[in-house]
């Protein structure tokens, strides 16, 4: 199945130089002692109908990026251009709360933890129906009909709409969360680790469901995840983040087959392969040390202390994200010279 959008599809969302710095306060007067640069100058675009994945390890800023797009956080600086259905664009980062309201219906989020993201005191009808009541003013039988329709679409039985979240398993709860996100016919859905908390067999069901819904409703996904094997299944393009910065962005197969950034190579090599016969046949790169602290990042390229290809220039000069041609973006001084190992395709 390959229903990738045309490469010239319009950009539904364009993030430019997005920064999100959280102040660190301490002392009696809560003076600002420094900043955690959670997202530090990130630019990318999401085309209509595609799935763009943001991957990286914990603390790399992928979730913060997603939350900035939803304006759950106020970005420190940068622009978030969103293309409206009529073709005009609007900068979400510059709008105030009331001006944002129409776009909150069009950009929705699916959360990671199906246990804490649903209110235990609301039944399914309330959870899925709340956005409809608030935004579309649906009530009574009309509301129930619409909720039933949504539940059917995500593979739940409408008879259960009077039940409370505790009566459902993790996979079913995630379906409820998806139904709620879809209730207002969104155009862009931010999936924040949407399948990470699920069991293997259920995870496959939800991934397939997300793909079906994307096809049926022409959804655009920004898929935030840490699991590279899951990401490969669902994405058209993948963006890799490290300590608040984008280090590589390319089409999924290009990135997996031939990564151009040493961090991407290390990430790919660390994914355990479910085949014991491949145990000693792969190049294994075990990164030393821990992810850099985003409040005190290293000089130059943030990855240089852990990079096995690092040279003198890497610790002095910060690499910019540049296009190697063919829309393969990478932030490494030596991307052209390095020959990095990807994942062997079957």
């Amino acid at each position: 199945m390959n229903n990738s959008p045309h490469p010239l599809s319009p950009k539904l969302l364009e993030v430019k130089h997005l920064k999100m710095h959280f102040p660190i306060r301490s002392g009696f007067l809560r003076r600002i002692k420094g900043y955690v640069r959670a997202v530090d100058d990130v630019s990318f675009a999401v085309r209509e109908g595609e799935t763009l994945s943001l991957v990286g390890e914990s603390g790399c800023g992928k979730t913060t990026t997603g939350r900035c797009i939803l304006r759950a956080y106020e970005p420190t600086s940068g622009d978030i251009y969103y293309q409206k259905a009529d073709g005009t664009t609007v900068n979400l980062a510059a709008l105030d709360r009331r001006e944002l309201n129409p776009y909150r219906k069009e950009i929705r989020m699916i959360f990671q933890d199906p246990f804490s993201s649903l209110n235990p005191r609301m039944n399914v009808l309330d959870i899925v129906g709340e956005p409809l009541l608030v935004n579309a003013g649906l009530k009574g039988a009309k509301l129930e009909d619409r909720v039933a329709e949504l539940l059917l679409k995500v593979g739940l039985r409408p008879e259960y709409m009077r039940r409370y979240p505790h009566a459902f398993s993790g996979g079913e709860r995630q379906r409820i969360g998806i139904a709620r996100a879809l209730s207002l016919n969104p155009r862009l859905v931010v999936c924040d680790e949407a399948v990470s908390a699920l069991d293997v067999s259920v995870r496959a069901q939800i991934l397939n469901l997300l793909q079906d819904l994307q096809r049926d409703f022409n959804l655009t996904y920004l898929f935030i995840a840490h699991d590279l094997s899951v990401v490969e299944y669902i994405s058209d393009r993948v963006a890799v983040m490290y300590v608040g910065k984008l280090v590589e962005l390319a089409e999924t197969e290009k990135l997996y087959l031939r990564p151009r950034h040493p961090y991407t190579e290390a990430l790919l090599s660390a994914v355990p392969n479910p085949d014991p016969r491949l145990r000693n046949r792969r190049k294994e790169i075990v990164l030393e040390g821990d992810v850099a602290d985003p409040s005190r990042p290293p000089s130059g390229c943030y990855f240089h202390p852990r990079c096995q290809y690092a040279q003198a220039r890497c610790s002095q000069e910060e690499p910019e994200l540049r296009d190697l041609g063919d829309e393969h973006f990478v932030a490494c001084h030596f991307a052209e010279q390095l020959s990095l190992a990807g994942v062997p395709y079957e």
Partner: protein
Amino acid sequence: MTNDSDTLLRISCLQTYFFMDQGTVKAVDGVDLILKRGRTLGIVGESGCGKSITARSILQIVDPPGRIVSGSILYRRAVSSNGTSQLGEEVDLAKMHPMGREIRQIRGKEISMIFQEPMTSFSSLYTIGNQIMENILLHQEVTKQQARERAIELLHQVGISRPKERIDEYPHQFSGGMRQRAMIAMAIACDPSLLIADEPTTALDVTTQAQILKLMRNMQERLGMALMLITHDLGVVAEMADDVAVMYLGRVVETADVDSIFHNPKHPYTQALLRSIPKVGRRARQRLDSIVGMVPDPFTRPSGCYFHPRCSAYMPNICNRITPTTVQVGEGHTVSCLLYNGATNHE
């Protein structure tokens, strides 16, 4: 192949139930497992399959209202005398009192465990060094100074830099990966013959996971201990295990060597599980085969074979009535499925 002297641990018909107000949860419902000296046994299954409770039963650390109802856990103790280790007596861990002296001599010394949550498995009130030294002082006749030196050496072994300074730090000063390293240091402090690792890398990032898995392999090689690796991640199992047991709803459905599990799985559940995992190196944007339905409610188990409502090879009037018994389908390869019951053909 089944040389009895190789067998370190033999679990037979283990049943651990939780008696709750809403009913009884049969978390472990007749588990048979054999663990060989020096080898790695991977236990895989989805949440609620009883893999963690099986491990906790071995150490008698099942939280109430759960308790071992029946079955035996025969553990062959190693007695080292004159530098050569020889086989000691065989003891039944299932019969021991959870608070008793006997189990406390084994727990943390001969059999130790590392847990999933590196954030919560240390006490935040004591230094890392204090907690490692406690284990050493409890089980070995050494002075405090010797224990401290041993703890520093252990921290060094598990790859913590500047162990002399870091031994006096508190858990919150360690990152997740370092805490898991310290946990391993504590677990191997008394040269255990079995290390139980319950989802040791689930809470860690992939690059840290690779570091920890490599460390566990090295430690196992150096100490010659057996490893029981409990995980839901089939990738980790493929990289680490010698033998694999697949569990579903408190029962072992298939056991075999790692190659047979991945390349010649017999049980429909194992087959379905393998089809439903995404692998890197496939084309982008594909569909996954998923298992229909979901893990059933713990209070109401299906009749007959527990897997029959989700099974693709379901045989009406057979699978929902008869409880399958474990049959051997190959060298060291057992499966508990009615497709193979009665059939004795190997491979």
